[in-house]
């Protein structure tokens, strides 16, 4: 290497090159978003959908029954669904990427901390037993609040136990898994004792879907996405350092135990918000980071936005496909069906021995 200036320029170039790929994926998201606007059981074409939106923004009310239905579908259903899909995919993928790096285990994802079974427990005791922690609120809200509060219990236990003893990354996840089993046990017992209809309802919620989303939930979902993105992006360098080993991190000035707890809290909060509204959409949190790693590398500066956009695109695309075929299928099904083979192909073609 003759010239250090050259090397510096070269490094900067390499750092920024993958940004263009992220741009491409973002473009794809926008494209699919627009295409998905008219998709539904009724035949609406794209221009009609755009016109309806334009009218809505201009404050023009739909005049006849025909327009009203289309208005409801496009503005009240499809747009919130699409935004919800993007938020869910983004949050879960960022959570997965961060946890995998901090726990140093490719099997980590936001659900392995027990968040989903906690939320399910809150949902189940609300649906099946009619109990809610904070009474006197309207039923739908109380269910969600229940789910949210219970979703945070596993994280709370991990944080609590960490104050007594230095908790290694694997221990952290195993604690989360143990708490998950306890909640699962309760869930199973309660489900076992309820009627088939409730079981069906619960099952639908478990599998995860964005179809029930309305405009009311959108601000919270967007908040979750923005919060986790900013928080994790803020500590991106620290995450990279801890990913290389705890001892090395300590001697570079980063307290790995504290960082893991902080990351855990943010990931849990954001995931809990998402899970309360969409149920458990699996697969994205685990797989999107791995795909992102393949194309963007393991450094958080690119991994976090990269995972977010890939995850968002995956969920959005799956929801679009569902809307084209049959609107009532849970999004998790299509996600797994469509994206599993793609993921396997990517894994197999990964020539370098990444890890």
């Amino acid at each position: 290497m003759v010239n250090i200036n050259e090397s510096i320029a070269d490094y900067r170039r390499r750092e920024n090159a993958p940004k263009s790929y992220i741009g491409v994926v973002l473009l794809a998201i926008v494209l699919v978003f627009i295409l998905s606007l008219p998709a539904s059981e009724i035949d609406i074409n794209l221009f009609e959908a755009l016109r309806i939106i334009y009218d809505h923004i201009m404050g023009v009310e739909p005049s006849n029954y025909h327009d009203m239905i289309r208005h409801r579908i496009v503005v009240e259903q499809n747009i919130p669904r699409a935004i919800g899909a993007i938020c869910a995919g983004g949050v879960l993928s960022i959570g997965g990427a961060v946890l995998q790096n901090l726990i140093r285990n490719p099997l980590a994802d936001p659900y392995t901390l027990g968040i989903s079974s906690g939320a399910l427990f809150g949902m189940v005791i609300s649906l099946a037993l009619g109990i809610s922690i904070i009474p006197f609120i309207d039923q739908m809200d109380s269910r969600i609040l229940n789910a949210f509060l219970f979703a945070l219990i596993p994280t709370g236990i991990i944080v609590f136990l960490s104050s007594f003893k230095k908790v290694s990354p694997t221990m952290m996840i195993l604690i989360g898994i143990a708490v998950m089993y306890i909640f699962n046990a309760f869930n199973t017992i309660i489900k076992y004792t309820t009627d088939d209809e409730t079981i069906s309802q619960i099952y639908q919620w478990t599998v995860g879907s964005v179809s029930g989303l309305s405009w009311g939930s959108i601000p919270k979902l967007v908040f979750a996405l923005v919060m986790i993105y900013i928080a994790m992006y803020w500590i991106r360098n620290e995450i990279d350092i801890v990913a290389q080993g705890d001892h090395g991190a300590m001697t570079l000035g980063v307290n790995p135990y504290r960082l893991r707890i902080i990351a855990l809290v943010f990931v849990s909060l954001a995931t809990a918000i998402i899970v309360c509204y969409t149920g458990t959409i699996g697969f994205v949190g685990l797989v999107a980071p791995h795909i992102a790693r393949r194309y963007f590398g393991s450094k958080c500066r690119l991994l976090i936005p990269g995972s977010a956009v890939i995850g968002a695109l995956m969920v959005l695309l799956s929801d679009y496909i569902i809307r084209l075929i049959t609107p009532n299928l849970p999004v998790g099904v299509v996600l797994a069906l469509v994206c599993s083979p793609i993921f396997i192909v990517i894994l197999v073609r990964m020539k370098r021995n990444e890890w």
Partner: protein
Amino acid sequence: MDDSKFEQMKAEYNSHIFRKFGFIILCIAFMIVMIAISVNIGGYQISFMEVYRTIFDHILGVVPEEYSKEWYDYQIVWNNRLPRILFAILSGIGLAVSGATMQSVMKNPLAEPYTTGVSSGACFGVAISMALGVSLFPSLNMGAEAFIMALIPVAIIIIMSPKLNNSVATVILIGTALTYMFNAFSTFLLVTTDSETLAAIYKWQVGSFSNITWDRLAIIAIFVIAGTIIIEILSHKLNIMTLGDNAAQSLGINVRRIRILCLLVMAIMVACIVSYAGIIGFVGLICPHMIRLIIGSDNRFLIPAASAFGAAFLLFSDSCAKWLSSLDMVPVGAICGLIGAPLFLFILMHNRRNIW
């Protein structure tokens, strides 16, 4: 080395070994006590003495008169309770051993017997069978469908393994992807059926040991015991493989072949358990960790200890489940979680060793 030092070191080494053996013997003793207790638990009231008289009579070849009280006792104890107890023991052995082995082979503490997709394959088999109403071997009560479909994800992994660069993490991820895929297939079927079928499939999935007869038990016993013995024979090599693939290879171990062999053996063991017991989690993932916290990671002791502990634990959980509700309203998997998870957290917090 002088004699006294040698004696001292030998004594220390022996005490370590003694501790490990002691743990195994303790588990086996506990299991035997549980068998004795569990035989008495059940919906149908049979007194303590009568239960044992029935067993002795059967062993001595005394055949009770049809439809007499003794005959009913015999049916309950021999064809209902005893098979269930033995099934719980065999499942405990199979799941715990598979879990410990999977964690060693995959070098990942989060791996479990279902990581390769066995459970979702079985579930899909059952879902097809129930949702479409077809069955290959009706007499086996969906066991065949579950078993065959359970092995498909593993077969896919084994077939793909030459292309995988010897990376275990890739195998884990493919297994997980396959799990999601088959779960998606199942879900697709389930959301399109009525809620009754859904409930029935769900009840299968939740896991129970009551769906067993002596002939099915025999097959399961053969597979589980043979599998455990094979893995125990390989355990020495598995120990060496934890040093790293390159180091192991230079010591003459064909790492890839052993991995595939282990995957196959585990898959068959777990598939036949899952076909009739449904999907019982926890034992495969957390029990091996509990055992490691108590006796360390040496595979040669880990496998027998896993068998003993797994059997004792699952039998205990099933007995509790039976005791709490004779109608199978309390699923055994739930009891496993409720008892095992706090126990695990307790052991974790009080442990000085830092294994991972």
